[in-house]
């Protein structure tokens, strides 16, 4: 429903959830929990199987350390606990047949105010199917989550032609750093390009669209970003680049490269 102003929403990183759902032999649309920077302590009230991965974080199951991209059997009363973030930014927790949050517009994703909540809070309960008979074909995967990658592959955006050769040089030969203004709607970069006076008639924007504001600020729209905008769209991130950017946080470095 992009043409009614509803953002794409959903997971910021698609790479890790895909591997997780693959291991759990779930439908690719099975809902995962997105854990950003700090993670929860979760008690399971029914048996199931889980798998997590993405950012490197210390995770324990009943106080024993557990590994990413590995299927673990869960029994009633088991406790999964997230500790320190070591690398990356977003970790994903998958569960057999997905988390059963309310479907809104066909999606189980949270997007406030269309969904009641924007994120999980202390004490909340989430439904899932009790499973006792799942034996995975593969119990683990060697996965190289792109946490060390800093190069974002891009294609030209609709208003790419407005950039001068000098600005293009700066854009493709510089290293940029993520500003503290970063969230599911957009990531801002600390470094600016030159000011300009160009605005376009409001037009479509998508996750991955890189906008250039009149003051020269670079904004990269993410999954919850607005679906329309009036700032020039200079670049468009590839899906792969979005997965890399989703694992970046304030201060991390990135650079752009033509796909």
């Amino acid at each position, binding site marked *: 429903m992009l*043409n009614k102003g509803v953002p794409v929403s959903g997971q910021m990183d698609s790479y890790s959830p895909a591997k997780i759902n693959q291991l759990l032999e779930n439908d690719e649309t099975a809902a995962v929990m997105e854990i950003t920077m700090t993670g929860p302590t979760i008690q399971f009230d029914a048996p199931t199987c889980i798998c997590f991965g993405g950012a490197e974080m210390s995770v324990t199951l009943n106080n024993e350390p557990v590994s990413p991209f590995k299927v673990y059997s869960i029994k009633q009363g088991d406790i999964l606990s997230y500790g320190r973030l070591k690398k990356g930014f977003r970790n994903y927790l998958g569960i057999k047949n997905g988390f059963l949050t309310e479907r809104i*517009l066909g999606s189980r994703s949270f997007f406030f105010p269309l969904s009641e909540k924007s994120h999980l809070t202390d004490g909340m309960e989430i439904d899932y199917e009790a499973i006792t008979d799942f034996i995975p074909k593969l119990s683990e995967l060697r996965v190289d989550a792109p946490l060390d990658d800093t190069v974002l592959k891009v*294609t030209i955006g609709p208003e790419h032609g407005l950039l001068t050769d000098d600005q293009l040089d700066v854009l493709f030969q510089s290293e940029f750093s993520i500003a503290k203004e970063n969230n599911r709607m957009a990531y801002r970069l600390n470094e600016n390009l030159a000011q300009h006076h160009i605005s376009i008639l*409001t*037009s479509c924007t*998508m996750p*991955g669209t890189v906008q250039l504001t009149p003051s020269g600020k670079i904004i990269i729209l993410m999954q919850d970003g607005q679906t329309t905008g009036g700032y020039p769209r200079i670049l468009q991130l*590839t899906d792969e680049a979005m997965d890399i950017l989703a694992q970046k946080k304030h201060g991390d470095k990135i650079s752009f490269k033509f796909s």
Partner: protein
Amino acid sequence: MNNYDINIRPFGSHAILMEWPNRVEESILEDILEFISVLKTKVNIAEWETVPAYNSLTLICRKQAIPFEELKKQLQIWYNEENSVVKTERFLWRLPVCYDLDFGIDLLEVSEQLGMSIAQVIEMHTSHKYTVYGIGFLPGFMYLGGLPKELEVQRKNTPRLKVTKGSVGLAARQTGIYPQESPGGWNIIGNCSVPMFDADADTPCFVSVGDQVQFYAIERAEYDLHMIEAEVGIYKREKIPIHA
């Protein structure tokens, strides 16, 4: 279709942007909508998202990457074809607004800035038909064109952190409705009792780009009644087909 000079460019690997001349005109918008109707007879539209706005149409294929050159040629051919049979369905929506000062928290200030009485502001706001040039910013947020010059007021210097859901506002050349509570810098002159976006409804957002909107004033009692009707699910929206 009027055969404007259109430009077709790639927009990432999954989308293609079609751009009409850089002007805000109803006839351009109509041309875009007619083309969408033509497209529906040519492709499996379920595999595409079509995002029309002002002078552009973005076609997004989520499932797979688009063969740009091939599609560009095809789109140009379809656009150039004679096709007068295709009719687009557009509606005029009559939307009730309560302009009570409880809702229109900036109405007094706006009327003073414009040198009019409150009654005159309301009269002017409700006597024009506004065209929906785009929907974005928030689910169900309409970009409306056609605001008379006499109603142009600057955005508030300091935006509010929270604008009530349903608030009707004025800012520069725009008027519109905040479909959800949100931060906002517009001058609030009333509240619309019809939800512009309802995720639980069969049609979550009943307005489409190309439709028109006209506001009419209602008293507080009627506003409260609409709220109850909406909760129970019996509220009927007023729509009138627009004939080209």
